[in-house]
């Protein structure tokens, strides 16, 4: 492995098994097991995917729905264990998948910053240092001391984005750039995202917007039905993808 490589994926396979004849009870299970009609079809969500991402690179992943993009991101962030092949990632991975999933409705915004920060892997010192920054960015003001069940959904997303965006991780995983909050906040969050992407952080970026990908990424991986179609420079791959 090259020192410069941040993420190396080698022959990654992800196989799901699907039951066609959904077993509903133990009796049915026993019978079908006995009759050997218990058939499980398998489905390859990722099939022999290999690539490497260098430090500081913005790496895009494109493909149709169901091509395996999200599965690949989950494998890289360690949520899914691949059924075949290896993935190695250097440094801290910050998942920016579905914000706010670690929030607890009964806790205040203040308590949730620490809870969610801990879930994202930040240290206590880091959070205490950056607490003010997070509150300022979220524009929540005094509401930070109210339980978040009293928040509007926009306020909640703003808080979630602020917690996630304050860190400068080694690897940032972005599944669609988020349209959070009102227009002003959207501009602000997009700017922060660009800042991160330009600031030496390795970024894995998934989007359906080919323009965004072309604009932001250095290199692009094209997935189709779990297989790698091609890897290469952003503009070239995007051109071929749109024409296909």
């Amino acid at each position, binding site marked *: 492995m090259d020192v410069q490589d941040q993420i190396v994926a080698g022959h990654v396979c992800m196989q799901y098994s699907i039951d066609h004849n959904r077993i509903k009870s133990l009796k049915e299970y026993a019978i079908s097991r006995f009759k050997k009609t218990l058939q499980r079809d398998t489905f390859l969500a990722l099939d022999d995917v290999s690539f490497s991402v260098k430090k500081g690179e913005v790496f895009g992943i494109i493909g149709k729905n169901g091509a395996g993009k999200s599965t690949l991101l989950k494998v890289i962030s360690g949520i899914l264990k691949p059924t075949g092949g290896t993935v190695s990632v250097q440094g801290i991975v910050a998942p920016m998948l579905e914000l706010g999933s670690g929030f607890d409705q009964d806790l205040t915004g203040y308590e949730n910053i620490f809870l969610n920060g*801990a879930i994202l892997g930040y240290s206590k010192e880091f959070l205490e240092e950056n607490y003010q920054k997070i509150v300022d960015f979220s524009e929540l003001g005094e509401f930070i001391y109210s339980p978040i069940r009293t928040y509007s959904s926009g306020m909640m997303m703003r808080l979630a984005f602020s917690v996630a965006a304050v860190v400068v991780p080694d690897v940032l995983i972005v599944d669609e750039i988020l349209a959070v909050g009102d227009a002003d906040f959207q501009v602000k969050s997009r700017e922060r995202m660009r800042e991160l992407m330009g600031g030496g952080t390795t970024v894995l970026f998934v989007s359906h917007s080919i323009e965004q990908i072309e604009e932001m990424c250095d290199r692009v991986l094209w997935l189709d039905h779990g297989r790698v179609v091609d890897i290469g420079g952003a503009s070239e791959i995007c051109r071929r993808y749109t024409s296909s």
Partner: protein
Amino acid sequence: MTEIRYVKKALAIIWVLFFLSVVILYLVGGEQLQYAFTNTGEVVRATNDVGELTTGKVIEQAFRLDGNELQQLKLYGYGYDYDYPVGGIMEVSILDEDGAALYDETMDMALLSGEGELVINFDPLLEVGSDSLPKLRITVIDGSQGSVPTLYYGSSISLARGEAQIRLQDEEKVSVDGVLQDGRLCFQVTGRREIWLGSFYWAIAAAAALLLAGFSMYTLRGAKRGSGQPFLKMLRSMKKYRFLIEQLVSRDFKTKYKRSALGVLWSFLNPMLVMTVQYIVFSTIFRSDIENFAVYLLTGIVCYNFFSEVTSLSVTAIVGNASLITKVYIPKVIYPVSRALSSMINFLLSLLPLLIVMLVTRTKITPAVLLLPFAVACLLALSMGVGMVLSSAMVFFRDTQFLWNVLNMVWMYLTPIFYPENIVTGWQSYILKLNPLYHIIRFFRIVLLDGISPEPKAYLLCFAMAAVPLAVGYCVFRKTEDRFVLHI
């Protein structure tokens, strides 16, 4: 470099804990560490008497004791309702197997008048050979009809409900004037046996210290080279995820009573109220003759509540956190562990009402309570082990939650929480002995009620009954955790 400092700190804590426990165990363990205390078993029900103890009467009763030193002899007799004062002279002797007298004392039979209970304390302790069959002999030297007491014998023991016949071998039967009777004398001999742990205590402690020293060296060397020894790995992840665990525990604790008016007071109130109800039920409707029933009951309730809370919270530990597990990578063990730890806070709070009840009932609080952290750790380990199996099973088999509700109840009735443990006899007692909670609760009760350290075997049993479930639970969890995300 910071890692080495962290490892050094962890090792220092382990050493301090080690020294503390060696010293505390020595000071508090006292006699229990050096001797095993035994007796000749339960006293039989007094159903027959041996007749008046008139001059020349000889009563002989052999007994077996799992020990080599006798401490005390208790004889149960009866002084009839005579017009004359009861009196006379008898000789009480203990003979060894060959018939040589080990102990001999002439005493006044007046000691047995009324519902007489004669107690002889051997001082110094009476040495009998271990695994021998000594004999108690009572010879009446002077006693005239009409003014002497009698001794009882019988062949059944009383249980909490009814009685049970016991089968006696000839050597266990009482003989009156050389004639074997169908029964055993109402008597009890208590004694003790030296155990090897007492004599080797410091040797064992030194050996453990040596082992620990070796382990420390090995770990430090590993830390310098940055190797992946299991212990170092554990330390690293503890350091990394400590903050997260703190946050999760404080969340669980804060949200538990968040919207209730009495809040954290419930941690005190709940065991108190449960105890009050059960105390009323079991001290009025079902009478039980347990000494200090309130403390007995509350100890059981507090321990069982903790176990029950941890396990039922663990059932949903993985499934309930599905939204996190599918989005962020966190070692999954953290979920059941954090739930167990937040219940731990609750448990520690509920020890306060226990303390209050102990003070109110004037139960003596002795230094033996210093041994409680051991029992608490065992209880935590057991609950966590069971919890891990449950949280993993729940992912693949959602019926687990309903099944566990039932099993939890069954387990509760299998554990002597509100009934005395001697109610359980025969094959049921084997089940009782297999119940880890029984051993742990028993440990609590010996420490709190008797104020002494349990026998060394109890430590081993508690440890094994906690470590095995924890190890099994952890292995099951680690084996299955990679497939969780596919099923939630």
